[in-house]
């Protein structure tokens, strides 16, 4: 059973540390103990940084002892997906090709987290280079779902979702390229947000698909998630695609969940064949709840969302084929083979990349090649424009859109490992928001009756309207909490 400290929310921990009720070192130690106790089974972490974490926690305690005011994440243990560059900790992206690489520089997001007095407790497992929906593509073995250890925690940020769900950290960081935060959040029963593209800096985040990658937060509560969202966001001159605008008032929104009078649209394309009954019944229940809370719920058609998945599987691999070219054994990471530079590059890449990464590099190289560019990459970009227009048209009618985050609850480890298409379908509902660059989150709405596994609600908002997500999610969370009488995660039986 988790200690009292690991059951607290990030908001509670930060207040307790700031108020001197508990030291940051104690909080960190409690989480390290919890990791030692259960992570052998969950395998959420690739690297637990006990010494670094305790040193960081003591620095927070010293700061308080000097009478300085502490930051908003005072002493809160945060688990970080292993593709954020962190000084003093390895960054492998779940790949053998980066085994042992310790970056000489820090990502903007983790630097902000440290500046807010958060404590990085370790680096979490992920699908290799964020390519996957289950963490099974990790070069270091899969993570497991704290609800049922035979199930996947989703992916690619599965380790970060599992870490928060298993109370190994109060908060965690992930990245969402096609659903890599929202889908694992949904299947692990936690909150996960993909902020507006450009709202959170990509500097120091190892790239999968540059035009889609979005760093974002996980938390067990809506308010915790908003807190990390706020801390990690904001303009960064080191990222040319970073938006120079104030961070939307997400914490404020999370404190005042309210959907009365809000116009909410159900995406009519995301239902039907392939959607698990329990996912759809919980979704229907959430719609009723929202109506009961005063929202005006209608159905909205976004006809081009049907083409989002194929467009994504041209754009993302194209960018990836170029982004991942630098892993060649010349400067860092794995080096295999001997002879000419070309031979070393080829042998290193053959040995260092897993099958899914190779598949996507080949897909992307093909889609970009001369003579095929217009038919594949070019056409996919046109589809992207149509999807943006669908969103724009929808957001003229409604304030937010909703859908299931993913068609099913967590699936068995190994179930889809040999069927890439089945795996890709896990991101069917999340991908449009990445292609359009807008904001979206997943918030828990109960368990599927048929298997007792968590189901989430997917909320989508226009770019820079991230606060609307939290307004809806906080209202939903509050309503369900009062119905259930306890947090959903209390029902997790995996551990």
């Amino acid at each position, binding site marked *: 059973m988790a200690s009292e400290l690991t059951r607290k929310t990030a908001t509670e921990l930060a207040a307790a540390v700031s108020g001197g009720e508990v030291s940051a070192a104690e909080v960190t130690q409690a989480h390290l103990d919890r990791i030692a106790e259960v992570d052998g089974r969950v395998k959420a972490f690739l690297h637990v940084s006990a010494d670094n974490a305790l040193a960081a926690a003591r620095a927070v305690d010293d700061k308080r002892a000097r009478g300085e005011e502490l930051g908003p994440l005072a002493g809160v243990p945060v688990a970080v997906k292993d593709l954020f560059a962190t000084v003093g900790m390895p960054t492998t992206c779940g790949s053998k090709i980066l085994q042992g690489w310790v*970056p000489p520089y820090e990502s903007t997001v983790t630097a902000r987290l440290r500046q807010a007095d958060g404590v990085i407790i370790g680096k979490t497992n992920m699908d290799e280079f964020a390519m996957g929906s289950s963490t099974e593509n990790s070069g270091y073995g899969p993570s497991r779902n704290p609800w049922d250890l035979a199930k996947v925690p989703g992916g690619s940020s599965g380790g970060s979702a599992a870490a928060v769900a298993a109370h190994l950290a109060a908060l965690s960081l992930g990245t969402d390229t096609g659903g890599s935060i929202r889908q694992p959040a949904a299947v692990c029963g936690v909150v996960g947000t993909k902020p507006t593209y450009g709202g959170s800096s990509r500097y120091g985040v190892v790239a999968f698909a540059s035009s889609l990658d979005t760093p974002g937060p996980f938390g067990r509560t809506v308010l915790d998630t908003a807190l990390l969202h706020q801390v990690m966001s904001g303009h960064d*001159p080191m990222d040319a695609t970073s938006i120079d605008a104030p961070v939307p008032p997400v914490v404020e929104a999370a404190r005042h969940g309210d959907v009365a009078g809000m116009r909410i649209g159900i995406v009519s394309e995301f239902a039907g064949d392939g959607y698990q009954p329990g996912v759809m019944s919980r979704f229907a229940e959430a719609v009723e709840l929202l109506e009961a809370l005063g929202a005006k719920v209608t159905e909205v058609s976004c006809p081009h969302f049907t083409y989002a998945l194929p467009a994504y599987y041209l754009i993302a691999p*194209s960018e990836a084929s170029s982004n991942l070219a630098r892993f*060649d054994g010349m400067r860092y990471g794995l080096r295999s083979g001997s002879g000419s530079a070309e031979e070393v590059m080829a042998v290193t890449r053959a040995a260092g990349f897993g099958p899914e990464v190779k598949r996507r590099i080949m897909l992307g190289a093909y889609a970009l090649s001369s003579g095929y560019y217009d038919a594949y990459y070019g056409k996919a970009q046109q589809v992207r424009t149509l999807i943006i227009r669908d969103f724009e048209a929808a957001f003229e009618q409604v304030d937010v859109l909703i859908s299931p985050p993913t068609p099913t609850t967590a699936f068995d480890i190994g179930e889809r490992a040999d069927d890439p298409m089945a795996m890709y379908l896990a991101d069917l509902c999340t991908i449009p928001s990445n292609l359009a660059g807008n904001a979206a989150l997943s918030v828990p709405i109960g368990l599927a009756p048929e298997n007792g596994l968590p189901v989430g609600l997917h909320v989508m908002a226009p770019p820079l309207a991230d606060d609307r997500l939290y307004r809806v999610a906080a209202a939903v969370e509050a309503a369900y909490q009062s119905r259930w009488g306890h947090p959903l995660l209390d029902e997790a039986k995996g551990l």
Partner: protein
Amino acid sequence: MTTVSVTYEEALTRYEPVFGLETHVELGTRTKMFCGCLTTFGGEPNSQVCPVCLGLPGSLPVMNRIAIEYTIKIGLALNCSIASWCRFARKNYFYPDMPKNFQISQYDEPLCLDGYLDVSVNGQTVRVGIERVHLEEDTGKSLHIGGATGRIQGAEYSLVDYNRAGIPLVEIVTKPVPGTGSLAPEVARAYVTELRDVLRSLGVSDVRMEEGSLRCDVNTSLSPLGSGAWGTRTETKNVNSLRSVERAVHSEIERQAAVLDEGGRVIQETRHFHEESGETTSGRSKEEAQDYRYFPEPDLVPVAPDAAWVDAIRTSLPELPSARRARLIAAWSLSDLEFESMRNGGALDVVEATVVAGASPRDAQKWWMGELARRANDSGVEVSALPITPADVARVSALVSAGTLNDRLAREVLDGVLAGEGTPDQVVEKRGLAVVSDDSALLAAIDEAITANPEVAEKVRSGKVAASGVIVGAVVRATRGQADAARVRELVLERLS
């Protein structure tokens, strides 16, 4: 392989050469194109690098606005139109000196498009069309250790210096230049020379070919005279001096003519230029060229220079070499050849500065292109590198005009200044070089000379004025050259009238 050889003159009786140039210029920005690393040349290997220019995982490029400004300057100076919106693209290929294994460049949306540069060869003006000017990042530099050639083939291992990686590089591509006939090599050279002068006047690059801050690829093709159809071109790389540009075109004309004469086919390929032999050898064939899989760079936002900014850059452009040429030729009444010899002699700036300091254009030219050019040549330096300032030369010129010095004395003053003895006035004083202009001192010497040459004096008295030269010469000799000959002559004639 070709066995026959064809002389250049022969080749031109049957073929029409067409050439084009791709010139890479390293911009002289203080920092690199996408990060804050310094661009200084010659630093310790890998001392001017950071996560961004090393392409470390997770790093991102951020555009250097000065590099964009410099590129727009170049575009405007080359009469190009400036794109109101354009994007960067990734050019994907694997090479160890390229940290990301792609180069951030521009593909189908260059910053500057469709301009020209007029160049002058033997007084004839040729308009060289500019296809595009675009901005990209430079790569690192490989050093191949072991092996005979210093090339990668046969090397034991290679070292890479990434100091150069990420330095902004502008590529200037000409349109094909037809119709220059036997002058093609010289026009190619004149184009690079003029381009270099333009870039230098803009202050956007130090344009040092020997340091690699200006590098040329030369495209050459031949077509049978009068056929109207253009032949297959070759691209000659590694052409890194003005002379080499000329030689590369020359040698490709001869080589391709020999291939065609034999009924062969010119292969579209990359060729390497060899400084020692002046010839080119085959490199990689373009027909098996790699696919660079260009696509828009997703880590950068599009560049959209607004019209006001472009106008401000346009207004701030300095006088360009062509305008300066026109101005100086008119103001100084120069011939094209006089101007070119001054420009090619590297004397334009010092001559103009000397004129600004008060000398007449003729005098300024006379001293710099004559006496001083000779001395520069003797000591193997550029005339502008001599230890004498345009102000010094203007002063010497003024002293001559005022009659204080004659030409012979003036040369001695220049000697003194070059030897570090001070300003012209200080040299005159120290060496006691002023012309004797005190009439009473001169009259004594004149009387002596008249007495010594009574017959000559008589001739002058009788109207044979020309004979006075003997007396004048004697006076000048007697005063050891410090007498002003013209004044002496006046006085002699007065005396004997």
